[in-house]
């Protein structure tokens, strides 16, 4: 590498500085969850565990958490099926309309969330006459989660090529047997990575959710957003936020375990 030492040092300091800035607010949330003061003056005048106790017994937060997990699981399951199908369909490098299909899959996430949200809100309410609720959230989340599974599956099948499946067919396996014994095991870690991303995306989503959740159903982000500006709920919200910050290490750890690389790019030669 011919980057001179001074520039290297500058880059190193800069990277360190930005990372400090990136993590400061997250640490702050965590520390503030013990802050005695309800308005979070800094530095904290004292520390307490009261807010954690309150949060653990907050039924609103707990119900919202359960809803969030249910929505994310269902949306991930749908995205897994649809994303895998689309990924397998597009494995042939050339066919008419290939770009259209890719674009259509990326669109729900490429367009601003508010557009996806209001479009689905309008379709559900005005066009289909449906009541907004659990079902509409799942449909909305599945729509923008397809892309994560699709990307992972597509990258995998393109890297591995068709030769293993051809060998399987030559040895007399039918299409479904080949899928079960060759294609699926080949895709497994890509599917897990895609599912993990889909789950994370759904679990965290608030913009589309705001427009597709009915008044009497709350995912965790919606619950946080609605309680954020209520002064007496602020400490509890802060504890939930702190828990979510801590939980964000879990998918990273899982991704490390599952695929050995956190993003596909980090293992690229």
């Amino acid at each position: 590498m011919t980057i001179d030492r001074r520039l290297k040092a500058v880059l190193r300091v800069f990277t360190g500085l930005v990372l400090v800035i990136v993590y400061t607010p997250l640490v702050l949330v965590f520390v503030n969850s013990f802050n005695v003061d309800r308005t979070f003056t800094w530095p904290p005048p004292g520390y307490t565990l009261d807010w954690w106790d309150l949060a653990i017994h907050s039924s609103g937060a707990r119900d919202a958490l359960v809803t969030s997990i249910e929505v994310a699981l269902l949306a991930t399951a749908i995205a897994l099926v649809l994303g895998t199908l689309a990924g397998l369909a597009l494995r042939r490098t050339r066919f008419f309309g290939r770009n259209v299909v890719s674009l259509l899959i990326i669109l729900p996430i490429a367009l601003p969330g508010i557009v996806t949200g209001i479009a689905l809100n309008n379709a559900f309410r005005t066009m289909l006459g449906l009541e907004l609720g659990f079902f509409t959230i799942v449909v909305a989340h599945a729509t923008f989660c397809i892309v994560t599974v699709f990307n992972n599956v597509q990258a995998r099948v393109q890297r591995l090529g068709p030769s293993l499946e051809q060998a399987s067919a030559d040895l007399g396996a039918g299409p479904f047997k080949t899928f079960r014994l060759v294609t699926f095991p080949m895709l497994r870690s890509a599917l897990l990575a895609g599912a993990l991303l889909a789950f994370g995306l759904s679990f965290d989503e608030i913009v589309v959710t705001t427009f597709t959740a009915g008044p009497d159903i709350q995912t965790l982000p919606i619950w946080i957003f609605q309680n954020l500006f209520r002064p007496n709920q602020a400490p509890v919200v802060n504890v939930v936020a702190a828990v979510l910050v801590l939980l964000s290490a879990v998918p990273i750890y899982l991704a490390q375990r599952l695929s050995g690389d956190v993003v596909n790019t980090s293992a690229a030669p």
Partner: protein
Amino acid sequence: MTSPAHTAPARAKKPERGSLLSRSGGLRTFVLLLPPMMWLGVAYLAALAALFITSLWGQNDFTGDIERIWTLDNYRQIWEIPVYRTIAFRTIGIAALVTVIDAVLAFPIALYMAKVASPRVRRLLVISVLMPLWASYLVKAYAWRGMFSDGGVIDWLGKPFGIQSPGYGLAATTITLAYLWLPYMILPVYAGLERVPDSLFEASGDLGAGALTTIRRVVLPMAFPAIVAGSIFTFSLSLGDFIAVTIVGGASQLIGTVVYTNVGVANNLPFAAAYATIPVVVMLVYLYAVRRTGALENL
């Protein structure tokens, strides 16, 4: 919608063996694509089309019901009422500013990760960049509320230097948005820089270029598609945001908040639909403008 079945005859000449439904490549593609395309076509494209149609409908001022009469009134209002025009331009300006800030911050970090750091440090850095991405978006916006608050951390840190927190407003919104979307810029730029072969640095150095010249003349042009790819995320995400601005923006209005209040409190869905087409049009123009840079392959 294009029909993949058209390609069936061409595929028949060179059948692909072995994989699911391999009898006919075209038929297989069609069958595999049918469910996802039905979903996206029905649930999504139709919804987008319906949104556009709704934006051309009016609303009864008294009952608040949608009236299915064709009208361009909603669009006329956006153009003629100065507040809406201002908010639209303000939002685009903030989205552009956020994108520039993120590009400027991300490039040195990505360069360090891709070309300077040892493999071990690189791995750690990738994780450190990804971690906040997994932390809830809402929580991060909320975290900045604590930073900017009166008597909060920024006030406390800045006191010795006479710096005060800008308070809740557009500056806080811009900073928070830049913070939120930074990883979306770092990751593609890092991936793009990793693909730049080391030999190019050496060649440039051998030809007498200093480090900065090499970066400006060799590395930046090669990283450009990746930066544009990242900018699609930062720009699009900023255009549609209404959460961050609600949390740290004080009373400031952006496109997102106007749409939000018109769907909810004001209950004027046709106008909200019309206003929401602004970010769509802006994004389509942007995607069209950058399609030749190769950014779309870098997504």
